[in-house]
Every structure is written in structure tokens, then in C-alpha cells.
């Protein structure tokens, strides 16, 4: 009876069972150590319980096989048959446990991987959020610093331009689109004769223009070109005196398209203008004087010859009454002509070199007044004489100064006619360092249109035959000859003259005097 012996199978079975037990115990020990070291590791936990299951399987199986051999060898196979189902059941159970664990581990790992991925996502999001926060914080700080810097720059700029605006000696103005003044500097208000810019704000710029046509031209240029440059015009301020301004202005661009308003700077050129006019006037007067001097020189000699021959003829024809009377007429008219020529030469300063010595101006004034006193009383003209004591003597010719005073008083008398006041002020002006003589009258005043011509030779408003028109021009020439100035104020704007009711005031300033 041959066949295949099962002995090798049993040998492998028996030996293998023992080795399995040994390996499984070692495995449990190793897995336990791993798990103890890393209790949070899912892998090691899985391996530990897997090893437990294998150990249970190995021990159960090894015991089963060993007992089988023993019971069969001892002749009690029925005992083994009774135990066998328990061993088999336990083995099956260990498979199920091992299988469950092996199924479960990847799933847990996947779940953990997903949780970890989400945690990573959250961490990334957190990191990004922190970075964004840091960036925002940095940005915020940078922004705050920049805002602070810009604010400081703006403040400095605002201060600079505010100082420029407030400190400028020119008139700086801002208008809205309807040319209503919205802002004005303090000096600008003063130029216009106001105390404060508040007095001017809200007023129309047009109301300050003296001439409507100039306003129209100004607006036209500004609206068409967008700017005006060095526009010279005359303003009427709060005071009556005209203000000459040179305006540079431009339209201000608004946030939207179009002009939002206007800004401009106006330079007060009143003094400059007056000075220029005076210069032109002086030049004109000098030219007239030169011409008058030339004519006077040429006429003077023939007049002297005519006068000489007339007087010789008078001697020859002293018996012929009719002819003698004619010759006297010729002589008288020739003398008139000589006097006019003399006056012309006085105006033109072309007579002999001026004699100048210390002149007591107060004495001159009193002397001339005494001469005119009777005439004034006849026409009920009151005299106000205000002479400062201890005045310095001016350097001039006393007779010629007397002539000037006489001319001015005669003119004042003619201007008043009857009933009025003539005032004379003689004082030393500390500020200008000049001895000043003022002659004022309560006459009708001088119209503005002829004010610039009154010192011209032969200009007169008096009826024909009453005046030659040389009085003021001769006075002008004499005063200029001694380095002085003569000017007319009609009306005099100083309040101190108001109480006298003066409408015209001639002011003579002597700069050459003995201290």
C-alpha cells in the first residue's frame, strides 16, 4: 500500500506553528514599542492590533495543531474533534479582525490625509491672511506716513502762499464766475480804501471799475483769452481819489470742464502814474519855456529899439500934441509887450542868473498880505493866516518870492470874487524836510479837465483883458528856479482843510533853506 506520506506535512506544520508563535510574539513586542513611542500614529496602532490578531491566530493555530498531534498520538482523536471547532472558530475570527483592521487602516489614513489637507489649506489660508494682514499693516503705516508727510507739505505750502497772499503789497483777489469777489488780501482792501477784506467780499468787481467800457474790455479779454496781462485801468475806491491799477488775472479751471472763477493780482501804479504825468508835464513845460525864451529873446531886442525910437520921437515932437499922444500910446503898448517878454523870460528861467539869498518867507507873506489887505477888505474876503514861528530862511530871491505870493493871492481873489476866505499856511514839514507855503481859497475850485494845464503860459479862464495867463506859469518858473515844487490840490483831500471850506490849495515846497 503505497501513497504519499503526510509526515513531511506534519513536520512543516508543527515546526512552522512554533516559529509562527515566536515571530508573532516578537512582532507584538515590536509593534507595542512602536505604538508606545508614537501613540498618535495610526500606522503603528494598526500594526499593533494586526500583530495582536496574528499572535492570537498563531497561538490558537499552533495550540490546535499541537493538541491534535498529542490527542491522536494518545489515541483520543474524539477529544481533538471536540476541540477542533473552537480552534477553527478562533482562527476565523482572527482573519476577520485582521481583515477589518486592514480595510480600516487605509480608510482612516485617507480620512486623516483629507483632514490634514484641509488643515494645510486652513494653515495656508491663515498664512496668507497673516501675510495680507502684515501687508495691510505695512500699507496702512506707509499710508499714514505719506498722509502725514503730504499734510505737512500742504500745511507748509498753505502757510507759504498764505504769507504771500497776506503779505503782498499788491491787491490779490479771487472772484466767482459772476465776478463777485470771494476773497481779497488785507493790503488789497487798504488799496481800495477799506479797513478789512470783509468789507469788500461779496461785492462785484465791476463796481470798482471807473469806466464801464474798460470793464467790458476787461471781461471780454478774460473770457475770450482766459487771461489778461498788465491791464491798466482806473478804480474807484472808497475814497474819492482815483486808483490806477495794473491787473493780471486768469480764469480758474473748475473740477469739471469750464471756468470756476477768476484770480488776479492788481498792482497799484497810482504813484508811478502820477510821477510819470509830472515828468511829462515837466518836460512839456520845459519845452514851452525853451520856446518862450527863444521868442522873448528875439522879440525883446526889436521892442527895445521901438521903445528907444519912440522916446526919441517924443522928444522931437513934444510940440505936436496929436502926434505926441500917439507916440505915448506906442510907448505904453511897447512897455506892455516888454513886461510880457519879461514874464516869459521869468517863466523860462532864461533871464539873468538867479540871485539867491536867505529869505524870511514869513516876512514876504506878511508884506504881500499888507499890500493886498485893502483889496480883500473891499470884496469882503476873510484872511486866515497860520505862520509857524522860527521857520528857517529859504534860499531864493525875496522880490521874486513876493511876486509868486502876489500871483497866488491875486488868483485866489479872482477865484472867489466877493465874500470868501483865503487861507495861508506856512510851516516846516519834518517828514519831507521842506518849508511849505500853502495858499487856499474857497472859490469854485479847478475843474479836473483843466487841472493839468493851469501852469501853461497864456492859459487862463479869466475874461479877455483881465489876465494874460502868465501869472501861474511865471510862479512855476520861479519856484522851479530855486529847486522848489508847486502843486495844486483841488479840492484838498486832507480833513484839516475841510473846516475852512477850501476848494483849491496851491502848495509850494522849498527844499533849499538855512537851518
Amino acid at each position: 500500500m503505497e501513497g504519499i506520506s503526510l509526515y513531511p506535512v506534519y513536520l512543516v506544520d508543527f515546526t512552522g506553528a512554533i516559529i509562527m508563535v515566536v515571530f508573532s510574539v516578537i512582532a507584538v513586542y515590536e509593534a507595542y514599542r512602536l505604538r508606545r513611542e508614537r501613540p498618535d500614529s495610526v500606522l503603528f496602532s494598526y500594526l499593533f492590533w494586526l500583530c495582536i490578531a496574528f499572535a492570537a491566530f498563531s497561538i490558537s493555530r499552533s495550540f490546535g495543531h499541537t493538541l491534535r498531534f498529542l490527542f491522536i498520538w494518545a489515541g483520543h482523536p474524539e477529544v481533538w474533534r471536540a476541540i477542533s471547532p473552537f480552534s477553527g472558530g478562533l482562527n476565523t475570527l482572527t482573519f476577520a479582525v485582521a481583515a477589518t483592521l486592514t480595510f480600516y487602516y487605509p480608510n482612516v489614513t485617507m480620512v486623516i490625509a483629507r483632514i490634514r489637507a484641509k488643515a494645510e489649506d486652513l494653515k495656508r489660508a491663515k498664512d496668507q491672511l497673516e501675510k495680507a494682514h502684515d501687508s495691510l499693516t505695512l500699507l496702512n503705516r506707509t499710508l499714514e506716513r505719506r498722509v502725514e508727510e503730504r499734510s505737512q507739505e500742504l500745511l507748509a505750502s498753505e502757510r507759504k502762499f498764505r504769507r504771500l497772499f497776506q503779505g503782498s503789497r499788491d491787491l490779490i483777489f479771487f472772484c466767482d464766475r459772476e465776478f463777485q469777489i470771494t476773497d481779497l488780501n488785507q493790503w488789497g482792501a487798504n488799496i481800495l480804501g477799506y479797513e478789512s477784506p470783509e468789507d469788500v467780499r461779496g461785492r462785484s468787481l465791476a463796481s470798482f471799475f471807473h469806466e464801464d467800457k474798460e470793464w467790458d474790455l476787461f471781461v471780454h479779454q478774460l473770457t475770450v483769452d482766459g487771461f489778461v496781462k498788465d491791464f491798466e485801468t482806473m478804480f474807484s475806491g472808497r475814497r474819492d481819489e482815483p486808483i490806477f491799477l495794473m491787473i493780471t488775472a486768469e480764469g480758474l479751471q473748475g473740477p469739471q470742464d469750464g471756468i470756476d472763477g477768476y484770480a488776479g493780482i492788481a498792482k497799484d501804479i497810482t504813484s508811478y502814474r502820477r510821477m510819470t504825468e509830472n515828468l511829462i508835464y515837466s518836460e512839456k513845460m520845459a519845452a514851452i519855456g525853451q520856446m518862450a525864451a527863444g521868442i522873448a529873446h528875439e522879440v525883446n531886442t526889436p521892442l527895445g529899439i521901438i521903445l528907444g525910437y519912440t522916446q526919441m520921437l517924443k522928444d522931437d515932437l513934444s510940440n505936436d500934441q496929436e502926434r505926441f499922444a500917439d507916440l505915448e500910446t506906442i510907448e505904453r503898448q511897447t512897455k506892455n509887450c516888454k513886461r510880457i517878454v519879461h514874464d516869459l523870460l521869468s517863466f523860462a528861467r532864461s533871464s539873468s542868473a538867479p540871485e539867491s539869498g536867505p529869505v524870511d518867507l514869513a516876512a514876504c507873506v506878511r508884506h504881500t498880505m499888507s499890500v493886498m489887505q485893502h483889496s480883500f477888505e473891499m470884496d469882503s474876503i476873510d484872511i486866515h493866516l497860520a505862520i509857524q514861528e522860527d521857520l528857517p530862511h529859504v534860499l531864493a530871491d525875496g522880490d521874486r518870492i513876493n511876486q509868486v505870493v502876489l500871483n497866488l493871492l491875486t488868483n485866489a481873489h479872482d477865484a472867489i470874487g466877493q465874500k470868501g476866505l483865503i487861507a495861508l499856511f506856512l510851516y516846516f514839514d519834518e517828514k519831507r524836510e521842506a518849508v511849505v507855503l500853502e495858499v487856499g481859497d474857497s472859490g469854485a475850485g479847478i475843474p479836473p479837465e483843466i487841472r493839468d494845464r493851469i501852469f501853461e503860459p497864456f492859459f487862463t479862464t479869466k475874461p479877455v483883458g483881465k489876465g494874460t495867463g502868465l501869472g501861474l506859469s511865471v510862479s512855476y518858473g520861479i519856484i522851479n528856479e530855486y529847486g522848489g515844487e508847486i502843486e495844486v490840490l483841488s479840492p484838498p483831500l486832507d480833513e484839516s482843510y475841510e473846516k475852512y471850506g477850501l476848494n483849491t490849495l496851491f502848495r509850494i515846497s522849498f527844499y533849499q533853506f538855512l537851518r
Partner: protein
Amino acid sequence: MSFMFAISFILFLLIPGPSLAVQVHGPPEGYYVHQIGHLLFISSIIFFLTFLKLDPPSPRRPWMFLKISMFLFLLWNINALIAHYFSNMLPREALDTPLDIFSHRILPPITTEKYIYFITRNDHLLCVPAMFFLVLALRAFRQTLDSEDSAEDG
């Protein structure tokens, strides 16, 4: 409501009958359960190895040992499945099992089934190496931990 429930409960107690709820487990069930256990183990190992294939973990050495171990356990399970099948298939007359276990043999004629039975009965040739590689994997994991610890200490 609770009164009706109480009456019904008392009537059930007074009139008892067979519940037919407890299932009887006869002799072949153990065999099937055991085979199903092997199949379950096989499928879990395949799932495990597939998982490791799709998402290879590191370090490589311990995982390599673990995969070899699992693969050998897979083979062992298949072997055991076949061995149980043929053990169940063979008739009692195919084996001679006297009291002397050293005389146990497979009786002729030796068929393919009997050869397969003989070969598959040596399942320890698979499960012992599988267990060995499991021990190797655990030790490799341990070495990895030690090297990590020394690296952290260093």
C-alpha cells in the same frame, strides 16, 4: 395609549408561542464562514496593497517589507482557501489516518486533487516568511524612528 400598550403586553405574556427567531447553525456553516474569512482577508490585503500602490508612502524600506509580508499573507490565504477546499472535497477513503501519526498517508491512486491537497497543506511555508517580513517591517519602522530621534537630537 399607555393603557392599551400595557394590556397588549400582558396578553402576549399570557399566550406564548414559538418565535422562530433563533437560526440553527449546522456543520457546513463553519467551513463557509472560515472560507469567507479567508476571502475577506484576501480582499482587504488587495485593497491595502492597491492603496499603497496609489499613494506610495515613505520611507521605502519598512514599507517594502510590509508589502512583501502582506503579499505573502495574500498567497497564504489563497493557499489556505484551496487547501480547505480540497480537504473538504477529498473523501474519507482518500486518507489513511491510523493512530500512529507517522503512518498517515494519502492513499493511491494519486490524483491531481490529492497532489494539490498535499502541496497546499504546507501553508506554513508561506505564513512563516510572511510573519518574518512583518517583524522585519516593524524593526525597520523602529530604526527609522530611532534615526529620526537622533537627527532631532543632533
